[in-house]
């Protein structure tokens, strides 16, 4: 285990590293573009006008702040700590993804880019990207694995309605990692006008930092809201992990508060004792993919292996580099939840709270009982309900053996 830093806010360092993780492992053709983006982001993040513009759209278009809701019946059901849900599913477009898209589209326009590309797994990021592109009148191309196009059809239709072109990707395993490969191939081909709007806190520097900063609005709001509701910080904060953006967004403002446990939940697919899972930290080892050094699912030869999860949004063999680092220094803990556990949690949340959670978020819900009992009766747990589950009803029905 590496030593814990004195100041978490000082990361990434000047080389885009979180300890040994992160960096800029990209083809030379893209390096000048990545440097341009780093410079543009560096200027924007300290510009009060940029912040004011973003805050305005987050409030009036996205609908922020999202509520922090005391889930009374889930709390009672588990009989442990008080469970609060951070209601990111109530944002415009139904997930946390819009926070990042709004930030990046404003940056893309500042940079004078006129064509937007994105990758998507569940389609939530694709929908959010298509939404901001529609709002600002920019053409949007979304790369999506052919397998995901099939299992997230409603979102494909939504993207089309929003004017985006969805390009199914058939190479490799035809899921999120392949969509990202294809988006990178597009970027390397269209270097003049194109902005790559990455949907999670992964990829090459500055994306992990930039996406984190755009998503950190979640954690900042939680801080204020829990102080108002409870007069103190929570004992634990939980989130599901795909690339790690909703998790790092809610974790980051609490990194320095060592008393607050940070718990990510990776997708265990059919089980950690099988090869069919998507848990990069629990089942992988460090390597280089998509521009950064991070934990990856790979074979002994360094070939990337396919991830498997019922959730298209978690079906990725890597994880954002900051999580790899938080794991190594021991600041955050990474648990897992299987497909079946997540389906159960999906139903439980629907029945007890009247909320259909995204199947991604349901992975965190699958572990919230354990954590709430662990923390104990007087404790407080906050869980990031990253998205709404309407998009998943067909998947859930299929697993229940029903047709709708």
């Amino acid at each position, binding site marked *: 285990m590496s030593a814990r830093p004195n100041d978490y806010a000082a990361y990434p360092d000047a080389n885009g590293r979180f300890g040994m993780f992160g960096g*800029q492992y990209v*083809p*030379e*053709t893209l390096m000048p573009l990545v440097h341009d983006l780093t410079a543009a982001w560096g200027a924007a993040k300290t510009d009060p006008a940029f912040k004011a513009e973003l805050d305005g759209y987050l409030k009036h278009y996205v609908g922020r702040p999202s509520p922090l809701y005391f889930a009374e019946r889930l709390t009672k059901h588990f009989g442990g700590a008080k469970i609060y849900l951070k209601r990111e599913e109530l944002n415009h477009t139904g997930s946390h993804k819009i926070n990042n898209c709004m930030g990046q589209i404003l940056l893309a326009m500042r940079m004078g880019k006129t064509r937007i590309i994105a990758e998507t797994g569940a389609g939530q990021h694709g929908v959010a990207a298509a939404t901001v592109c529609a709002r600002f009148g920019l053409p949007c191309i979304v790369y999506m694995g052919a397998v995901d196009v099939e299992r997230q059809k409603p979102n494909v239709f939504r993207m089309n309605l929003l004017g985006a072109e969805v390009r199914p990707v058939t190479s490799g395993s035809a899921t999120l990692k392949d969509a990202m490969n294809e988006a990178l191939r597009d970027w*390397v081909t269209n270097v003049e006008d194109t902005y790559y709007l990455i949907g999670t806190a992964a990829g090459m520097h500055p994306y992990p930092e930039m996406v984190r900063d755009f998503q950190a609005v979640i954690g900042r709001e939680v801080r204020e809201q829990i102080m108002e509701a409870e007069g103190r910080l929570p004992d634990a904060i939980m989130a599901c992990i795909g690339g790690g953006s909703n998790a790092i967004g809610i974790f980051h403002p609490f990194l320095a508060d060592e008393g607050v446990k940070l718990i990510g939940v990776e997708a265990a697919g059919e089980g950690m004792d099988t090869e069919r899972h998507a848990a990069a930290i629990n089942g992988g080892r460090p390597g*280089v*993919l*998509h521009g950064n050094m991070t934990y990856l699912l790979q074979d002994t*030869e360094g070939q990337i292996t396919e991830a498997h999860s019922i959730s298209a949004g978690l079906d990725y063999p890597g994880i954002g580099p900051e999580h790899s680092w938080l794991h190594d220094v021991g600041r955050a803990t990474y648990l897992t939840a299987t497909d079946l556990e997540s389906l159960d949690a999906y139903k439980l949340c629907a029945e007890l709270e009247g909320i259909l959670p995204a199947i991604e978020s349901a992975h965190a819900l699958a572990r919230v009982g354990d954590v709430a009992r662990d923390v104990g009766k007087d404790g407080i747990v906050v869980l990031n309900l990253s998205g709404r589950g309407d998009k998943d009803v067909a998947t859930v029905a299929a697993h229940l053996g029903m047709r709708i």
Partner: protein
Amino acid sequence: MSTSRIDARFAALKAEGRAGFVAYVMAGDPDYATGLAILKGLPGAGADLIEVGFPFSDPMAEGPPIQRAALRALGEGMTLSKTLEMIAEFRQGDQTTPIILMGYANPLVSRGFEAFAREAAAAGVDGLIVVDIPPEEAGPLADALDAAQVSLIRLATPTTDDERMTVVVRRTSGFVYYVSVAGVTGVKEADAAVVAPHVTRVRKASGLPVAVGFGIKTPERAAAIARVADAVVVGSALVDEVALAAELNEDVTSRVLSKVESLSKAVRSARVGQTTTV
């Protein structure tokens, strides 16, 4: 010392007053035995240098032909260590043709840079190109390669301006690879007139020979590039022959090698009668 194989070959090409032909093949495509037979036949068919791709599951800068070649090779169980084995077998019969390995970072990271560099040198590898390790991230790899006396070959591209060029050519030796188009392999076509001033720029900044690749598929285009560059690289068009031969039920080795012959002939004769030398 292995670097000298590259230097010696470029010195010989200069003396002959012609550009070199560089053949790119994917190791183990379509299988180990055929891949080795192709490798052994390349110098006789006119390849002056050989680039050997080692397959990676997620080749983010490749177009469909090389993506498919990598999948074919991986499907046949090709690995980095088997790639080195194959090169060692090739070396038993050829001590002069430079071999450049080309691929992506993760198989090397997984093996460990020091161990890889030692094994590569022992197998007879002369140079290494890693598509997704730019100069900013190359320190540890460059150290390992230096210790094993294997050249780190750098890529310069249409997006590399003069300021960046000085960063790109740092710690490089052997030659510089100019990527003639912004894009993935095997899609856009290179234009010799556009490429020429960039070759001059790269040569000046590096003091090294410049090989041009990406987007060269036909003998005509290879000849045009051969008039302005020190070497011409063809990859996608060769790996496509592997796929085509399999489809047509033809002998893969002879189909690939006859393509190499026609391309290398075009490169060899490109400057005949040309008075100015580059």
